[in-house]
């Protein structure tokens, strides 16, 4: 087994894979709505799927800051690849931060890293209306044996994943909000696809619905409540890594736009292109977005490095902050890309130029929908009735 390279090299490798492999395949992935197999294979070969696993379990030992940098780097070239990588690292984060006390989880992480397995998330469910903190399905435990059946409205790259992390009610008689996470390697479940994934953006994430049928052992339930895991890890990782992938997407669109304007300027030196000032405006928004994500990431790293931080992570104030990050990033990114389109003009509007922005714009529109911003705003509105800002 080769030794895992230093974390900075891993970030650089993710950027290289984005530029040299994910980028060139991105149009194809989007056109056919197919899984970005080239990029994910390259990520596996570079052992990047294990990037978030601690080094003592064979992984890259990367921090959330480094994972965020990888998501951004990939997002510049293929938003679908970046999102798949982000979703995978979110599950890893939950297992690493909450499964340390379980030898089953630790061994799973060793195996995942050694084999470079891809792990997907199953939080959605038919009949719960998009509320991640509510389940109908339950982990049915009988002695040592566990069974779980769940009808998921969407499982991103579910067919391609080698493992799943699934939310479910703790037991058959548990209320909807009393949830746990169940870790399921591929040999423990079957998936029956229940629909298609034919969307106008993020087409390569391959996220149709599936009916899951699983059996395993009670030890596959990750220790702790999903409520705590969600507040302390899944939500912060999700919002930070998604926002990072989206930032990459925005920067990729801006890079094309800048190249378009430079080409125009070179053709007619002395004539300032009409898009030059609008581009300058766009850059202020990109910086705002970037700083917002970096601040949130640094704050999370700080809170997870002090003992009293775990408590803060479950506070109303922190939930508001994390939701605000997702809300603002998901609104800024399509705005940035739309303005880039205005600057590039017809060259951006066409699908077959070096400055094509169609895929970027379509992918950007997914941000406000993956967890609906209206749902998040309603949650924040409720929290603001008790939050004092002291």
């Amino acid at each position, binding site marked *: 087994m080769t030794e895992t390279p230093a974390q900075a090299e891993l970030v650089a490798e993710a950027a290289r894979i984005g530029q040299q492999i994910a980028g060139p395949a991105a149009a194809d992935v989007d056109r056919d709505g197919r899984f970005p197999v080239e990029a994910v294979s390259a990520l596996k070969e570079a052992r990047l799927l294990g990037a978030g696993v601690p080094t003592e379990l064979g992984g890259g030992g990367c921090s959330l800051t480094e994972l965020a940098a990888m998501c951004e780097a990939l997002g510049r070239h293929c938003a679908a690849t970046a999102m798949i990588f982000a979703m995978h690292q979110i599950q890893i984060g939950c297992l690493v931060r909450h499964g340390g006390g379980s030898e089953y989880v630790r061994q799973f992480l060793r195996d995942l890293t050694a084999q470079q397995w891809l792990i997907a998330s199953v939080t959605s469910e038919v009949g719960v209306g998009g509320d991640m*903190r509510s389940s109908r399905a339950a982990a049915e435990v009988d002695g040592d044996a566990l069974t779980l059946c769940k009808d998921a409205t969407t499982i991103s790259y579910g067919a391609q994943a080698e493992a799943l992390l699934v939310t479910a009610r703790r037991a058959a008689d*548990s209320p*909807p909000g009393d949830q746990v996470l169940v870790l399921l390697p591929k040999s423990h479940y079957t998936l029956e696809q229940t629909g298609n994934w034919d969307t106008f953006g993020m087409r390569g994430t391959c996220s149709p619905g599936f009916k899951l049928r699983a059996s395993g052992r009670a030890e596959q339930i990750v220790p702790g409540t999903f*409520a705590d895991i969600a507040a302390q890890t899944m939500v912060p990782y999700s919002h930070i890594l998604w926002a990072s992938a989206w930032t990459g997407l925005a920067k990729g669109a801006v890079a094309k736009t800048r190249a378009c304007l430079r080409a125009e300027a070179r053709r007619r030196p002395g004539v300032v292109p009409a898009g030059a000032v609008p581009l300058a405006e766009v850059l202020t928004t990109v910086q705002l977005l970037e700083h917002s994500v970096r601040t949130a990431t640094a704050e999370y790293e700080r809170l997870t490095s002090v003992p009293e931080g775990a408590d803060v992570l479950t*506070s109303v104030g922190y939930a508001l902050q994390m939701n605000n990050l997702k809300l603002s990033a998901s609104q800024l990114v399509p705005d940035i890309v739309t303005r880039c389109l205005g600057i590039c003009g017809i060259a951006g509007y066409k699908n077959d130029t070096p400055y094509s922005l169609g895929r970027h714009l379509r992918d950007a529109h997914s941000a406000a929908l993956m967890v609906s911003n209206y749902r998040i705003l309603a949650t924040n509105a409720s929290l603001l009735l*008790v939050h004092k800002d*002291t």
Partner: protein
Amino acid sequence: MREVGEEVRTVVGEYGRLSVDVSTLSEGSSLYEAGMTSHASVNVMLGLENAFDIEFPDRMLRRNVFETLGAMQAAIEELMSVELTAA
């Protein structure tokens, strides 16, 4: 005037949307396991602020403070004693 613990239990029973009767719960029982969702817990917080004429500072708006009847009672008593000291 009703005892703090009794009042807390009444408010939780009214707003907690529990899947069991609040009278069956001990001071240490997990309200989340008894069906209280995050959304319902906000209504409980509002109900308690109204019933006791207090405001929970943000540092108290965390999951473990509203996990059990006992934890809520302790938080309220802490706030009420602070008020008495200030008066």
